[in-house]
């Protein structure tokens, strides 16, 4: 392999004479992959920024290795970042990459199976040495394999060496030099897809303000990568992806966790009440804690508790005190909070519990995505303990869902469980920056009038009880987890009162359905197949349905924001379709709820691999349903 690099570098014949062909493409999916130490996440993020600014629609999917930094060069240590960008609306990071940049053998080994036949494969030959090949379990060097060369458009670039060369005499140590080779790969891709680099360069200088020499080295290597494309004839093609026709407005790129954090802050700002987050770190939810911790001047208080129970308990305490209270976690942590959720619903205080779902059960696959906490959210507490449950569908949508969660929590004086997932949390998309003034208001009115006050006297419409906070003269009262009198809130062991309270709490949550707008159907209101989903699968389902519709199939899509209660008209919508397909990243949890609610024999499509759906998987399933003989 060393020889390849040598040849490439020593021979001038590769320098460009003819300008590259520029091909216009609709949609491209690029995946960067390499060792966790190779900086693939940064590479991907920077490429994304550039792509966003060009006005493409895009979606990203970072795929980290499992929690511990595995030894360099090994298979478990591979880190990847995929981006799909397009001149029209897209909804997923792409099923399979058109372009794969593999920084080492391990990355090639784990990622090659995904590359589309005929796809572009860029490998860093410099990393394909004996040791690395062995670590990746390759008996011989795969890039010398003729089959590989036949199947893909292979480009061998000794990125390692080229990086070293471009930094010769920079005075940097070999470690620092090795660390910048991701910039070379980034530069090449920027060239290939005509991405501007100014903002990346600005970004690098900002990131390394304290180490300007590192910043400049990165910039130099980035440019070297770009120039390599520009001046050598290694690549014969450049591609152009025109800007997408996105709705007009100002955009930025957000991950789901960022969007959720912004949604929570916005809820606080709009309501004029302090946001209190009580949380304990856990993958993939921690970033919400990190984001909110930095918003101290936005009326946000964050408390990193000793555990998840203290996280939710402190939030309930803060809610009792009048804050918008939030607790964030993931499955195993949410399990620990279920007892306290029961108290919150007895106290009838507003509270948002945000579960960023990950692969389970138990510790499971902590860095992977899954939708398997839905039943836990809806049913996972002792006693009759109804809680409204909602979910977000795209990274940007996490903003709205987070905001909506608080709107309902406050309006109905109830804990609300908000589900997102690892895929949304870390994935990103261009986000039309909303005008907070246009969001539905969140109106907090603490009751201060002691006249005729009863702690559990309800609003006739929402059944919400009054929010009375300590510090209010003349309204001292006590709340607790024992069953309480339906008016005064004092402890009551009366059998009839218990039944009344159980039914009232259930009814209150049922009335949240009044807030759900009529179900939006993407496509015709009736037809052969309804693809019914929830949560982070939105993009894949939408893209699949769109493509099926384009092919004239009678397929429509409904994607649920609210899982509990369900929309009032959903039963009716469902009945208008021959078949209801419910694709989920679990063993069929929503479909269990739909079956029991509507007695509908929905068809399930389940994938539990810690990965999102591919569009093709949905399309294939729908086609199968369309083709099956009717009973």
């Amino acid at each position, binding site marked *: 392999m060393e020889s390849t690099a040598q040849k490439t570098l020593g021979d001038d014949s590769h320098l460009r004479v003819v300008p590259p062909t520029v091909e216009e493409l609709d949609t491209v999916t690029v995946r960067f992959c390499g060792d966790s130490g190779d900086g693939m996440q940064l590479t991907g993020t920077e490429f994304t*920024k550039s792509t*966003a*600014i060009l*006005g493409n629609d895009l979606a990203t999917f970072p795929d980290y290795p499992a929690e511990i930094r595995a030894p360099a060069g090994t298979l478990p240590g591979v880190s990847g970042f995929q981006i799909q960008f397009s001149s029209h609306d897209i909804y997923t990071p792409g099923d399979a990459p058109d372009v794969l940049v593999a920084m080492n053998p391990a990355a090639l080994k784990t990622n090659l199976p995904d590359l589309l036949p005929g796809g572009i494969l860029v490998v860093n030959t410099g990393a394909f040495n004996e040791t690395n090949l062995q670590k990746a379990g390759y008996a011989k060097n795969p890039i010398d394999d003729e089959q590989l060369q036949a199947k893909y458009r292979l480009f061998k670039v000794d990125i390692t060496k080229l990086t070293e060369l471009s930094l010769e005499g920079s005075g940097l140590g070999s470690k620092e030099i090795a660390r910048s080779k991701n910039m070379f790969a980034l530069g090449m891709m920027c060239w290939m897809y005509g991405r501007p680099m100014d*903002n990346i360069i600005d970004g690098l200088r900002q990131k390394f303000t304290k180490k300007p020499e590192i910043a400049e080295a990165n910039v130099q290597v980035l440019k070297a990568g770009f120039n390599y494309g520009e001046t050598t004839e290694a690549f014969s093609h450049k591609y152009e992806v025109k*800007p997408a026709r996105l*709705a*007009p*407005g*100002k*955009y*930025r*790129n957000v991950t789901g966790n960022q969007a959720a954090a*912004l949604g929570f*802050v*916005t809820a606080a*700002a709009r309501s004029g009440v302090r946001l*209190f987050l*009580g949380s304990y770190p856990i993958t993939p939810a921690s970033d919400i804690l990190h984001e909110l911790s930095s*918003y*101290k*001047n*936005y*009326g946000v*208080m964050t*408390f990193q*508790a*000793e*555990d998840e*129970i*203290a996280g939710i*308990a*402190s*939030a*309930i*305490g*803060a809610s*009792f*005190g*009048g*804050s918008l209270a939030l607790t964030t976690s993931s499955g195993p942590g949410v399990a620990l909070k279920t*007892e*306290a959720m*029961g*108290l919150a619903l007895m*106290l009838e205080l507003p509270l948002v519990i945000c579960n960023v779902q990950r692969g389970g059960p138990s510790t499971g696959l902590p860095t992977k995505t899954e939708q398997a906490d839905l039943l836990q959210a809806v049913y996972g507490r002792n006693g009759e303990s109804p809680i409204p449950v909602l979910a977000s569908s795209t990274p940007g949508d996490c903003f709205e869902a987070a905001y909506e969660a608080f709107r309902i929590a406050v309006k109905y004086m109830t804990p609300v469980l908000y589900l997102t997932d690892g895929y949304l949390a870390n994935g990103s998309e261009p986000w039309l*920056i909303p005008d*907070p003034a246009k969001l539905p208001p969140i109106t907090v009115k603490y009751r201060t009038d002691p006249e005729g006050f009863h702690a559990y006297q309800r609003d006739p419409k929402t059944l919400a009880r009054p929010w009375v906070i*300590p*510090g*209010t*003269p003349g309204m*001292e*009262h*006590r*709340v*607790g*987890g024992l069953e309480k009198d339906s008016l005064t809130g*004092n*402890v009551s062991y009366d059998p009839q009162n218990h039944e009344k309270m159980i039914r009232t709490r259930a009814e209150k949550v049922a009335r949240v359905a009044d807030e759900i707008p009529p179900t939006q159907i993407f496509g015709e209101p009736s037809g052969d197949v309804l693809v019914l989903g929830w949560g982070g699968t939105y993009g894949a389902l939408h893209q699949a349905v769109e493509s099926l519709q384009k092919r004239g199939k009678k397929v429509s899509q409904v994607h649920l924001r609210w899982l509990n209660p369900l929309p009032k008209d959903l039963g009716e919508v469902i009945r208008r379709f021959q078949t209801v397909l419910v694709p989920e990243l679990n063993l069929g949890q929503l479909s269990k709820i739909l079956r029991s609610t509507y007695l509908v024999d929905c068809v399930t499509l389940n994938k539990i691999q810690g990965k999102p759906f591919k569009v093709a998987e949905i399309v294939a399933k729908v086609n199968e349903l369309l083709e099956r003989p009717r009973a």
Partner: protein
Amino acid sequence: MSADLIPVSQKQALTKKDFQSDQDVRWCPGCGDYAILAQVQKLMPELGIPRHDIVFISGIGCSSRFPYYMNTYGMHSIHGRAPAFATGLKASRPELSVWVVTGDGDGLSIGGNHMIHTLRRNVDLKILLFNNRIYGLTKGQYSPTSELGKKTKSTPYGSVDAPFSPAQLALGAGSTFVARSVDVEPPHLLSTLRAAATHKGSAFVEIYQNCNVFNDGAYSYMTEKAVKADAQLVLEPGKPLVFGKAKDKAIRMNAKLQPEVFTLGKDGDLSQAIVHDPTNETLAWMLAHLAPPHFPTPIGVFRSVERPAYDALMNDQEKDVLAKKGKGDLQKLLNAGETWVVK
């Protein structure tokens, strides 16, 4: 809403009765909890804090019914978690006076972790731990303060768990205020509660409480009239550690850094006696170890030192950031990072 804003007239108007809620008190007749309730209700008017700025938060247990009987704001939460609820409330509403009432099971068994973390953080909470060395509410299982060998419903052959010393545990967690008092010593209890109330930061008060139904007489070894003077060592800052009916016994540190009892005038004189200093770390620890049969049981304030309270630090930090960065502009936050416009 803070105490200082209340006109003096109103302050004076409050009496013990004002702090009694309309709920019937439902402890067993003879339960030590009554005596504690009485002292707390007695203390309240002294503090000059209006009722509506006071919150009592408890877990689950007999003792945890306490908030229902206080005519203040209150929360009867879930088992063991009261300090965590209280932390969230106090951090977000530092102007409130927040009290935690808990039991030896609630506060030290299931709730031990929240307890030690709250003490470590020094959240400005007044924590009253009713130690009856038994699970009262669930009808008589041993608790983490029950003595070795204790026979209870769940240990018919005697327990094999060595108990915690609550005071030691609180010291180990870094508590800035650690005290002990007894249900049947009203004036001592009142003054201990007063000291706790005026401490800035977590104040941990262990109160020996008799459960006359499931663990009657747990403290008679030091509360009975006949033995009391010899069995109790009343701690007073600046005063030597002297006790006994004839005030003739004292405690000194020997050459091996171990405490020992000596008789004044016989084995030594007053100058050898240790002088109580609640700011001395080592002394507090040593006192927390004094126990029968070789020593009297100390009651009073073991430790009281100043250290910024968590809630204060948290709110100060918020103010700092606000001062430095100005009130955050939501529009700016939403528009942060790289943005672009689509037309």
